[in-house]
C-alpha cells in the first residue's frame, strides 16, 4: 500500500508506527512536499492479515527469528517446545530490570525465548544497558511486534 498526497502529487513517506496492544495498528505517512501527515488505522482483522503474511508495515531492522510467525501467533504451543543450544554470546548482553523480567515472565513459554532475544538484540544494537518496560514498549512499536 502507498499513500499519495493528491495536492502535491507526491508519494507520502512512512513516518511512524504504533501498536496500541488491542490488535489494531496505526501508521503515519508524511508528504515530503507539504509536510501533511495522514494516519492509517487498521482494525484487528486487517492487522492480522498483515501479520499473517509475516511482513511489517514500515519495514523492519531486525533479522527474522526462526519460526517467527509460528512462535508469535500459535496460542496452543507447548511451553517446552524449544531449547536453545546455548551458543549465543552473552557479551554485551543488556541487563533486565525486575519489572521487565516480571513482564517477560508473563509471555507464554512457547514464544518467550524469541521475545527475549528480540528485545536483547534491540537493546544491544542501540547501546541500551538495561531493558525496562519502557524500552520494551518502544521496541514493540519500532519493530512492529504486535502482541509481544
Amino acid at each position: 500500500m502507498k499513500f499519495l498526497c493528491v495536492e502535491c502529487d507526491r508519494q507520502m513517506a512512512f513516518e511512524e508506527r504504533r501498536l496500541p496492544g488491542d490488535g489494531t495498528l496505526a501508521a503515519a505517512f508524511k508528504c515530503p512536499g507539504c509536510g501533511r501527515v495522514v494516519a492509517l488505522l487498521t482494525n484487528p482483522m486487517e492487522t492480522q492479515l498483515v501479520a499473517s503474511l509475516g511482513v511489517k508495515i514500515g519495514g523492519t531492522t531486525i533479522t527474522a527469528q526462526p519460526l517467527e510467525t509460528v512462535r508469535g501467533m500459535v496460542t496452543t504451543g507447548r511451553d517446552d517446545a524449544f531449547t536453545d543450544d546455548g551458543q549465543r554470546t552473552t557479551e554485551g548482553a543488556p541487563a533486565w530490570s525486575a519489572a521487565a523480567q516480571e513482564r517477560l515472565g508473563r509471555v507464554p513459554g512457547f514464544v518467550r525465548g524469541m521475545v527475549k532475544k528480540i528485545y536483547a538484540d534491540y537493546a544491544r544494537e542501540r547501546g541500551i544497558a538495561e531493558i525496562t518496560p519502557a524500552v520494551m514498549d518502544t521496541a514493540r512499536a519500532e519493530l512492529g511486534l504486535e502482541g509481544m
Partner: protein
Amino acid sequence: MPLNFRTYHELTDPDRSGLPEQIGAQRRRVAERVAGVRQVVAVLSGKGGVGKSYVTAGLSRAVARRGRPVGVLDADLNGPTAPRLLHLPVARCTLRGDAIEPVVNAEGVKCFSMGLLVEDGRPLAFRGPEAESHVWRGALEAAALREFLADVAWGPLDLLLVDLPPGIQRFQELADLLPAPPAVLVVTIPTPESADAVRRALRAVHDRGAPCLGVIENMTGGPFAGDAGDSLAREFDTPLLARLPFHPGVHAWDALAQRLGSAS
C-alpha cells in the same frame, strides 16, 4: 471536479515498508534453505483417509535404510501424525543460529511437524480476532509452511517428502513457495470414488506444471474394490509405483523406495 490521481504502479519512490521486498526476502530464504535438497516431493491425494502419511513414513524409512539422506516435512498442520508414525523421540526442538534443528528418528529420517510444537490433545490455534477468522487463517497456515521450509535446518538431503493434508490447497501453497513446483507422488485407494477425487488433484498438479513421479495404490486386497491406481496411471501417463496391502512388509517399502529412485 473529479480528482485526478495516479495509481499504485505509477508511484515509484522508495518505500520504507518495502512489502514486496519483504516477501521477496522470504522466498529467497526458502530457496537458500532447500538448495541442498536434491528433490522435494509432495505426497498428495485429492482425498482424505487414503494413507498419505502412512505411505510417507514407510517410504521415508525405506529410503533411509538405503543409505540416502531423507527428510519428512509434515504439512498437515491441523492433523500432524508424522512424529508418531516415524517413532520420533520425545525431544525439544533445538534452536541453533538462524534455524531449528529437525528431529531425527532412529533410522536417520529428519522430520519437522506441528505435532512437535503444539500441546498434546489440543488443536492448532492462532492468536487473532475470532470473528471472520477464515479470512486470515489460511494465510497463517501458509506462513507456517513457509517457515517449516525456510527455518528448519534440513541440511543436504537426497529427498524431502512433504506430507500434504487432503485436497489441493496446501500443494498450491507449496508450489508458490518453492523456486519450482515440487515433484508429486499420488496416493489413492482402489475405489472409483477415490479415483474421482484424486483425478481432480492430479489435474491441478498437471496444470501447475509439476512433474508426477507416479501413483501408489494403498489398502489393496481388502474391502476396497476398484482399479483406481491403474486407471489414474493410464489416464495421466504416469507409472503405478506400487500396490500396497493393508500391512505392507519391509520388502514392499524397500521395493517402492527402489522404484521411486528409478522414477526420480
